[in-house]
């Protein structure tokens, strides 16, 4: 038991779809926990790193300062760091705002957007507890060293399963055509 690799996961600027896909391995999750142990993760609801982990899995890119801090924390506490899915690898949908000035983004979201409730006096949130939004959405590998990239939006459950099991057992991963082709 003590020698099982320890896995931590996080969702940064993502939609939790990659985590949902991880859960999509269905009952194989029972096999998986025979192979690995989950630590800090939304799945376990463990909030802090209490010990060094073997594998860190990151969903989502970095759109604000907190994402960056989180990612750096994962890099510091995990031996192997993995970008899971399009947003972590390339910024994904959130990166569609790249190229639009911050002011325009914030005003569209909080002042002028069609979903802004006109009854209230709309404001741009600026509590000091809130992280700062970055000039653009960054893929994880521009901020820290990433060891593996698992493609997909979201990556197919089988791919995640194959990846984790081969990583843990030290075999070579065969990326099947269907797991890489999306149309």
């Amino acid at each position: 038991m003590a020698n099982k690799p320890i896995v931590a996961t996080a969702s940064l600027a993502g939609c939790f779809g990659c985590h949902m896909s991880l859960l999509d391995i269905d009952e194989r999750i029972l096999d998986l926990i025979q192979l690995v142990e989950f630590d800090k993760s939304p799945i376990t609801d463990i909030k802090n790193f209490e010990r060094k982990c073997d594998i860190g899995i990151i969903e989502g890119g970095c759109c604000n300062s907190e994402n960056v801090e989180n990612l750096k924390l994962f890099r510091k506490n995990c031996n192997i760091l993995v970008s899971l899915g399009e947003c972590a690898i390339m910024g994904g949908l959130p990166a569609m705002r790249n190229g639009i000035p911050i002011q325009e983004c914030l005003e569209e979201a909080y002042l002028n957007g069609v979903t802004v409730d006109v009854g209230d006096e709309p404001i741009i949130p600026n509590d000091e507890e809130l992280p700062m939004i970055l000039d653009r959405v960054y893929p994880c590998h521009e901020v820290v060293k990433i060891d593996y990239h698992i493609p997909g939006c979201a990556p197919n459950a089988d791919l995640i399963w194959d990846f984790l099991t081969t990583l843990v057992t030290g075999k070579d991963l065969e990326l099947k055509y269907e797991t890489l082709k999306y149309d």
Partner: protein
Amino acid sequence: MAEDLEKTIKKVILDTRVEREHLLEILWSVQRSERKIDHNAIKLISKLTGISTLDIEATASFYHFFTEEHAGDITIHLNDSGTSYLAGATEVENAFKRELGIKFGEVTQDQRFGLFFTSCIGMCDQEPAALINDVVFTNLTDSKIASIISQLKSGIAIEKIIGEGEGNNALELIKSEISNNIRNSGEVFFNDKYVKGEALKNALTKSGDEIIAEVKSSGLRGRGGAGFSAGLKWEFCKKNIGDHYVIANIDEGEPGTFKDRILLTQYPQQIFEGMTIAALAIGAERGIIYLRAEYKYLKNYLENCLEEMRKANLLGEKIQSSSFNFDISIKIGAGAYICGEESALIESAEGKRGEPRNRPPFPVEKGFLGNPTVVNNPETFAAVTSIFREGADWFAALGTKESTGTKLFSISGDCERPGVYEFQFGITVEEVLKEVGAKNTFAIQIGGPSGKLISQKFFSRKICFEDLPTGGALTIFDNHRDLLKMVKLYMDFFVEESCGFCIPCRAGNVLLQKTLTKILDKKGTKQDIELLQECSSVMKIASRCGLGLSSSNPVTSSFENFPEIYDNLLSKESFVSTFDMSQAVAESCKYVNRENTFNQEGSHE
């Protein structure tokens, strides 16, 4: 205002008939008079021509001399290419900013001046150079700019403040301050053997097939870079059915290349006569000069040369009392390097976005307006004229077996005598360096950015298609130059000039550019080198046209011949982050008025 604009547009339409192929001319007339092409103007053009607004907008937005926003009554375009940087463009850049109080990409508040960068304008032997409302200014210095701007501010006309040009540049019809810098004499071009009409009269005694046979036996290969047999191209074209066309490709946009400008300035008749001989051979009645916008200052002069040839019955109807009719018109581009690629050039000449076509069909099958078309470099046409004057055997005896004749070389960079030279094919790089007075040469970019960066071990090689092929541009770097910075500047050029149609080129050039920046910032690692190589090899296989197929050459050839310029800068770490938190949050902190307490790493100071 709107009425004036309508008049301006109508005048162009009346002059040219409303046909799609004249759209660029209409857009130029609007840009020139309004200093912009905004949506209102586009709607008006659409109303008057019947071309859809979307189509007009798509076309206008392709060319960088057409602007949606006001570009200033006086629009300054400073060349920011590699050779300009070698000659001190940074000082010149600062002088413009200081004198006008604006940055590049901006227009003064009163809209009198607009300041922009542009890619190579074909003046590499007299850089730094800029275009000010189509007028070329060369050899710029800090004090020259101060004087130019103060004169312009006091209302003196641009044409009045230029210096004296050399050779035909001093003619009233050109009146530019440009130098030709022709540095030697030669057998084919740089001599006074040309007699107007002699070659054409000779060709008129032959049939089309005989003319083609003669061009083939001369061994003449295209001078635009690829070196395809001119005779073969004409033969293919002649075989196809349709209204045949002859086009001279005077887009000359490859940084470091400017020899076509000299031919145009001093020997345009030889180009026109060569085109006429090509027309006679393939059975064309119409020829087109596609002239890059940067050379617009030559237009009136060229029109006049054409008119003189018409008067001498060397152009027009029943040429030299034969049954042969042929005439040439001039079309002006609007700032896009890709329009030098022959199929993109044809699209642009048809008044569309200058995007390359899928090939096949090649232009010789379906070219201008779907008709069989010969596109050649002007030097190729001028060489044809000499062949029909002196004979194919005479031409074939010059140069080497596979590369006959002489070649015009555009020489720039670190040497005593930059300019244009005529050498026979087969000359060694060493011999060229000696002729041009280059000392301590460390590297040469041969054939422009899409060519190769060569090291001393190539200097004994022969310049010809069977050894070191080139379109004739040599940019010389001596041993105090930062080569990797030059490579990066070349990639800046390709990022700017990629037409964006296909992904390997659109994204690949940006990836190469960003990775080089990272390496120059000493943040590159071994993995970045692998990325450069992988990305280059994908681009060389998967790009749609010659631009993307060759734009990684500066990277691959510099890596091959000068690996140390990369190695010296690489970090020993396996990863170096380029992310800078303080910079990344600067904009949002400023907007919500919060103090930016982050440092580069992301901790709070």
